[in-house]
C-alpha cells in the first residue's frame, strides 16, 4: 500500500502508523452524558466494509497526522488530507473546551 502524503508525496506503508477511525470526535468532558459519550468515542466502531475515513501518522516521514479515505475491501485510497486542516475545518475556531 502506498499513501500520498500531502507533504512528502507517495510513500510506502512502512513509513506510516495507523490509528483508527477518523469519524469519531472527542466529546466534551463537561457534558452531562460524558461518561457514555467517551465510551462510545473510545470503543465503538462502525468498521464498515466500504470506504473508511481513518487516521494515519507519517511516523517515518514528516510526522503529520493524516486523514485517509480508503476502501477496506480494496485498499484503494481515494483521498489523503492533512488531519490538522480537517480538524480545523470541522471545529469552530473559537471553540475551546477548557
Amino acid at each position, binding site marked *: 500500500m502506498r499513501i500520498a502524503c500531502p507533504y512528502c508525496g507517495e510513500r510506502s506503508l512502512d513509513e506510516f502508523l495507523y490509528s483508527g477511525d477518523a469519524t469519531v470526535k472527542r466529546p466534551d468532558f463537561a457534558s452531562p452524558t460524558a461518561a457514555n459519550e467517551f465510551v462510545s468515542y*473510545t*470503543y465503538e466502531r462502525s*468498521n*464498515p*466494509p466500504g470506504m473508511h475515513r481513518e487516521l494515519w501518522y507519517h511516523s517515518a516521514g514528516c510526522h503529520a497526522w493524516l486523514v485517509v479515505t480508503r476502501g477496506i475491501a480494496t485498499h484503494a485510497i481515494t483521498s489523503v488530507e492533512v488531519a490538522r486542516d480537517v480538524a480545523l475545518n470541522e471545529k469552530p475556531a473559537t471553540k475551546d473546551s477548557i
Partner: protein
Amino acid sequence: MSRAHYSIFSVLRESLRGHTGWGPAWREAEPKPDYDVVIVGGGGHGLATAFYLAKHHGPLRIAVLEKGWIGGGNVGRNTTIVRSNYLLPGNIPFYELSMQLWEGLEHELNYNAMVSQRGVLNLYHSDGQRDAFARRGNAMRLHGVDAELLDQAAVRKMVPFLNFENGRFPIHGGLLQRRGGTVRHDAVAWGYARAADRLGVDIIQNCEVKGFKREGDRIVGVETTRGYIGAKKVGMAVAGSSSRVAAMAGLRLPIESHVLQAFVSESIKPFIDGVVTFGAGHFYISQSDKGGLVFGGDLDGYNSYAQRGNLPVVEDVLEGGMALMPRIGRVRMLRHWGGIMDMSMDGSPIIDHTPVSGLYINAGWCYGGFKATPASGFCFAHLIAHDQPHAVAKAYRLDRFATGHAIDEKGMGPHPNLH
C-alpha cells in the same frame, strides 16, 4: 455409509473396495422453515457451538448457516497453534477449558484433528520479560495449568538451532507450556461438522444471512440468500465479519477488522518440534506434520476486509525469523496470505447477549480464535441454552468497556491493532 464410525478397521475395510463405501462427512442439508437455534457462521466456532448445543442442551432443532463453504474463515487460515498460556484471570480458565476439550477432541468427535501437544515456548530476552513470564507462568499454575520457566541452558537443549551467539537481543530463556501445540486446522471444522451432523444439526452452505427479522425487541428469524428462516434464538459466530453482521441488527461493536498474515514454507524434513515464539520481534514458528514451516508475525496494522497483506509486513516477519533462526535462510516461502481478525478493543473476545432479545454474539477473537474453538463453542452453546454465561466465559461481556473491566493481556489499551 455417512454414519460410519471412523477407525483403522473401517479404513482397512474400505481399502479393500477402493474406498467406494464412504459417504459424505456431513449431509448437504436444505434449510427448513424454522429452527430452535440458528447459528450464523459455519466456521470452527459456529460448528462447535452447534455440536455442543446438540450434544449437551438438546433436543433442539439447530441449523448452521454458512455463506460460503464451512471452515473458510479463521479455522481455515491460521497458524494452527493451541495453548492456554494466558495471564489474566478473565482468560486463563476459558483457554484452559479449551485446552482440555482439545485433549479429548478426537474421541469426542471420532475425528482425528491431529491435536499435537509438542509444546509452546515463548522466549524471553531480558530480565523484565523473564519476570513478566514468571508472573504469567505463576498465574497459569494457580489455575492448574502447566507452565515451566526455562533458563537459557534448558532452551538451548530444546531448540539448539536458535541464534544464541550472535543475536541482536540475547535469548535468556523461555516460558514453556508443554501441553500447548498445534492442531490440523481444517480438520477441526470437518470434525465438528461431521459430529454435529450426526446429532441432527443441519449444516447449510452457500446460505448468506442478509438481515435479521425482529418482532418488537425480539429476534424471530433471519433473511438469507436461500429464503427466510425462522429461529427462536440466533447466535452470531462470524468473527472477521462481526461488525457487518451486527450492523444488520443495528449494533456497533468494540471491534475493528484487521488483516493478519500467515506464511508457510516449502516442505522440508522436520527439525522444529514445537512452537517457538520470538520475544524480541514479531515472529512465531512451528513445523507441520507435512514438513512446512508455518510462521507469522504482527498484524498489517490497518483496518481491512481484504484477505491479503502487504510486503513490508512480510519483510518484517522474516527479519524476525532470520534474527532468531539463521539456518532457515535458504528455505523458501511457499505461500503467504491474510486472514481477517475481529480485533477487539482490549484484545479479548466477547461471548454475550446483545441488546436484542434472542440474539447472541460470539466475536472479537483477535488472533486467538483458533485455539479457543472448542471452549468458544462450548460456552456459547451454554449461553444460548441457558441465557447465562458459562462460568469460565463470564468476563467476556459486551459492556465491560463501559464499566472499566477490560481484559487487556498486553496492556495496549483501546488500540485494536496493537493487541
